[in-house]
């Protein structure tokens, strides 16, 4: 995140709605964002999987990782890093996918905070 960029804080839900271990999708402007709470820590990332664009909020958590429901890739929701690039091979006789198809970037994270019973996500302010 560029430190010089002006950020705007957006209220996205009540604190009580984001229970421990839960994830949910919220929309700010045109951006779909997945937010969640794990071991008391909040996280927010773009809801689009960096691999092939599936909705991450349809996935499930594995420890600190979100597991994408489309191809099973796992990303750490706090660091944003790709942690497990799952093979498509369900049988030993299947041929592995090409490297170019398999590669993925990391999650796009947003600052998230909680104050007075509300959860806020900060996004770059739209340029006039």
């Amino acid at each position: 995140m560029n430190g010089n960029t002006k950020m705007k804080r957006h209220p996205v839900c009540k604190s009580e709605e984001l229970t421990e271990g839960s994830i949910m999708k919220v929309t700010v402007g045109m951006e779909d964002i997945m937010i969640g709470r794990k071991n008391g820590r909040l996280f927010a990332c773009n809801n689009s999987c960096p691999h092939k664009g599936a909705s991450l909020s349809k996935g499930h958590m594995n420890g600190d990782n979100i597991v994408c429901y489309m191809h099973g890739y796992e990303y750490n929701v706090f660091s944003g890093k790709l942690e497990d690039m799952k093979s498509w091979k369900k049988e030993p006789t299947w041929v592995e996918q090409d490297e170019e198809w398999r590669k993925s970037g990391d999650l796009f994270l947003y600052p998230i905070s909680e104050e007075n019973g509300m959860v806020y996500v900060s996004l770059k302010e739209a340029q006039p």
Partner: protein
Amino acid sequence: MVKGEVPNIVALEVLKKNGVNVEKLKELLTKGVGAEFTTYYYYTILRMHCTGLDGEGIKEIVEDARIEDRNHFEAMVPRLYELGGSLPKDIRKFADQAGCPDAYLPDNWEDINSILKVLLEAEQCAIRSWGEVCDMTAGKDPRTYDIAQRIMQEEVEHEAWFIELLSKRPSGHFRRKFAGQSPHTGSQGSLIHL
């Protein structure tokens, strides 16, 4: 109007007002049609390897799925361009960005079940992929939604066929009227070859 100048496009304006992220939608459509096109290619190889007595029993159903996946590509590509998107100029990039894995011929293809498992995996990925487009456009972009839901209906049928062949779970399937009939996407105006 100056040549090359694009006027205000009301069909896009209303989508944005409805809250559709058009850039994201174009990305998903490009990945979706990429998966359909590559699947059509790989299903050709899979169908060629439906050999022997077992293979004879399934090659027609594989052919239906193969042609219908090509029809899905044909049905959605015009909509991608209407939205201002385009196909990658290089087919290698087109294949690499596809939303689903390549349905490679398995090493033990002589076992017909191994081919069926690959076919099933491809159909299941396609259902998830078009489900994303349906979710994004439902109630906001009726034109894209209509095409995507037609494609998804056929992908759901394909999944049911291959599950039936693998597990004997009834799918309700009998046969298409002709190979690759596409009962749902076949009514799309773009499919002029049907």
